[in-house]
């Protein structure tokens, strides 16, 4: 039996080898289908996890494919250093939206990553309560009154204080600093994912349970909870001019969102390079596409819909 086993392995090997040789000789579908054409190269866009990012990245990808004939790969990976490393390694070429406020400095300093301007979206981060609470406790949106309501926010996990649901790990988060600087009786819970926050806000609104969590603009949740923006807690403004002072942070600043490209893409001067550099749209644009995504459209469909409705903007990116 042992020899038979050996022989069968040999047979399998021979047949697979034969199939491979045959496949090498036979005319492939590809020859008739024709590869990607045009003078645009083959590029990789980083796909970060949040809905708004997907909207921007997909629109750029669709325009590049349809109008420029580029070959676009979309790779899902974590934002921040992970992505910058991948850009340095040459596996990622575009980050279409980075909130990180200069965390890429080490990489841009040595020329591995290049800033490609603002993408037109303005990022606003803040702490928001469940919208129903504003009606019931009108003064809750003033941070000075938060401690008065802290007991409402208690959960099994918050150690007797109010539960403060922080944003996902990769996002700009200063919850602990805000709690300390504003002397709040809250415990920061690292909710870990956007999904947890979406759930948190929606369930709180539905069941009229107290909730305070990290939220931002542009974000798809606003289309589901139109009253959310009014539920933003106002903290005393803080001084961002001096980074050293900023450790006593009291609130998030608003951030123009930045595009980053790899050195390779920057040097290539490809049609895709100028598309990415020219890409710019508004929070409303992004929210529209993201809402379609949320509504069950695939990213491709949502992006194509927006592109068809906004030819003028698209043409301006293409320099037409």
């Amino acid at each position: 039996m042992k020899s038979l086993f050996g022989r069968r392995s040999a047979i399998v090997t021979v047949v697979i080898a034969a199939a491979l040789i045959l496949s090498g000789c036979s005319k492939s579908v590809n020859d008739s289908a024709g590869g990607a054409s045009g003078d645009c190269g083959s590029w990789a866009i980083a796909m970060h996890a949040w809905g708004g990012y997907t909207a921007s990245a997909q629109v750029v990808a669709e325009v590049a494919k349809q109008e420029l004939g580029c070959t676009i790969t979309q790779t899902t990976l974590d934002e921040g250093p992970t992505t910058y490393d991948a850009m340095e390694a040459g596996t990622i070429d575009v980050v279409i939206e980075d909130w990180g406020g200069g965390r890429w400095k080490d990489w841009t300093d040595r020329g591995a990553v290049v800033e490609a301007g603002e993408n037109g979206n303005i990022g606003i981060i803040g702490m928001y309560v469940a919208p129903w609470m504003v009606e019931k406790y009108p003064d809750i949106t003033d941070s000075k009154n938060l401690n008065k309501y802290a007991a409402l926010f208690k959960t099994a996990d918050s150690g007797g204080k109010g539960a403060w649901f922080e944003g996902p790990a990769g996002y700009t988060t200063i919850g602990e600093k805000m709690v300390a600087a504003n002397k709040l009786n809250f415990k920061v819970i690292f909710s870990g994912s956007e999904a947890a926050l979406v759930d948190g806000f929606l369930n709180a609104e539905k069941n009229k349970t107290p909730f305070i969590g990290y939220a931002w603009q542009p974000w798809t949740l606003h289309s589901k909870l139109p009253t959310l923006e009014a539920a933003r807690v106002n903290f005393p403004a803080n001084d961002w001019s001096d980074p050293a002072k900023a450790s006593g942070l009291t609130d998030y600043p608003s951030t123009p969102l930045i595009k980053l490209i790899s050195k390779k893409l920057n040097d290539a001067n490809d049609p895709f390079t100028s598309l990415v550099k020219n890409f710019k749209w508004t929070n409303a644009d992004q929210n529209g596409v993201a809402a379609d995504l949320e509504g069950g459209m695939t990213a491709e469909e949502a992006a194509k819909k927006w592109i068809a409705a906004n030819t003028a903007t698209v043409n301006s990116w293409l320099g037409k």
Partner: protein
Amino acid sequence: MKVRKSYLLLASVTVWILLGRLLHGKNTLQIDTYENTSFTSFVGQKALDLRGNRTESPAFIYFFNPIRGAIDGFVQVIRNLIAVPAPNSVIPVIGWLGVVGLIAFAVYATSQWRTALLSVSLLLACGALGMWQFTMDSIAMTLAAVLLSLAVGIPLGIWAGLSDRVLKIVTPFLDLAQILPTLVYMAPIALVFMIGAASATIATMIYSIPIAIRITSHAIRNLNQSPIEAAESMGSTQKQTLTKVQIPMAKQMIVLGINQTVMAAVSFVVVAALIGAPGLGKPVIEALIIRNVGQGFVAGFAVVFLAILLDRSTSAAAKRQDSFIPPTEKQIKIKRITLIVSAVLAVISVFLSRTMLWAAVWPKEVTIAPQVAKVTNNATGWILENLTIFTVGFKDLISYSILNPLESQLSASPWYVTVAMIVALALIIGGVRTAILAFVLAMAIVVSGLWYEAMLTLTQTIVGCLLTMIVGIALGIWTGRNDRAERVLRPFLDAGQTLPAFVYLVPMLGLFGPTRFTAIATGIVYAIPVVVKIVCEGIRAVPHSLVEAATAAGSTTRQIITKVQLPAAKKTILLATNQGLIYVLAVVVIGGFVGAGGLGYLVIVGNSKPELQGKGLIAGAAILLLGVIFDRIMQAGARRSS
């Protein structure tokens, strides 16, 4: 002796609780998440330098980067073959029909037609789930990692099988690799080899090589010695004995090792996506992020199908030789003819898959993914709608009754009190050497500056393990005593072991919200199958004569279980507890993604915030230290109880 030991344990726990109450809140070593100690910022700076050095340092230019390049290239070749468009092409070298044909033929040739049929249906199911390309990517990644693992593992295993010294040197590393939570070594690997297929392959290899080494050396060591002695007495050289006698004799066991290596690599498919592995992990992780339970399950099912496919096809190849009845002339002839026919069919399918578009790219219309996603979404929607009151109630009950008191005991006591407690436990359960080891490791965590977070993770692991053992021992006893129960439960246990924890992390998040308990519950689901299996085997291994004697003496079923079977299986149960702890720990740290905090969150945040990178790396090391402390104490306890 036994009584004294349990009194000692009770006494030290009491002292610990009293001291903890007395000194509550003192010397807890708590620092804010964004804060660095001088040690963590030092490590962070080193890590940043390392990133900067990638293009300059000789270690990178002449060592790491070539390795990365070679592995990346190797993976890419396999991917081009079956998964992604080959260079200058829009389709892979072999399209889906060709892959199905070839796998069917290969499985048929090495085992039976039934296994071949099963393999084909599983492959088609993956395609129908809309996961064809992801599945092929995962197969390519698994294949690359397994081939490389075997290339390293089998020779090393043979060497360790022949030489006691080598075995002694590699064993600690093998032990360490087995308790290493996967989340821990991904960051360091990605730091050196960067995000991508190479890092993912290397991370998978670290997980699967130890298994190849272990089983191969075991196979060589446990051979019947007489043929070897005969060969030696006839004057064979050592090399001849090895290649002509030992390896052929150990072959079947080594094939089993290949099977286990493949399974280890498959179980890594999802986690590897965190460091850029192409394949099924991608949709699973995306589903977690956008909380699409349906999508998570669709991809998760594909992972399970893939695991079953690879398991059955490789284990069938190993088992096939078990039959002692030689095939008749006619059977051989039939097999030969069908083999030729299927070979021809396989070749035709490859040919078609290169010439016809429908056979090259999986037709998008053939899909059941939306239906599957809808059904699971509806089911979870219903569960969330109706059961959340209960699940949240249960979560709160556990949180207030066990989790919070234990957490406050562990994290709000002074560090030296808890270290003393751990050392005392190690001393009582494991003896002096274990105690010294526990002391050194615990102090290392203290020095790292992450003691507070380690205590949070420790709390969750202990609570998770406790609940796991309650369920696991109950089910283990049931399946151990009842064949039918075992048969009914087995498929669920197998599926539970292959379904990636990330898949049910999503519904858990829905059930329990972003809390510590979500991580604990996920850890429990992940650990229960292995605990049940070990306990079940332990109960079955209890000699029948013991049970019969007890029955004859008129014991009730309950008495038999508590007085005979459980005490006799004590060692196995301790080992099961150890496995439970390690498994729960491995998943609890993933809980950082769902609000569990602790060391796992630091690892995750360290990956995405450069200023916390050092802290993340140290947190990974601290998780490992915790794991080793658990493992050493429990192993020593198990050794002593036998």
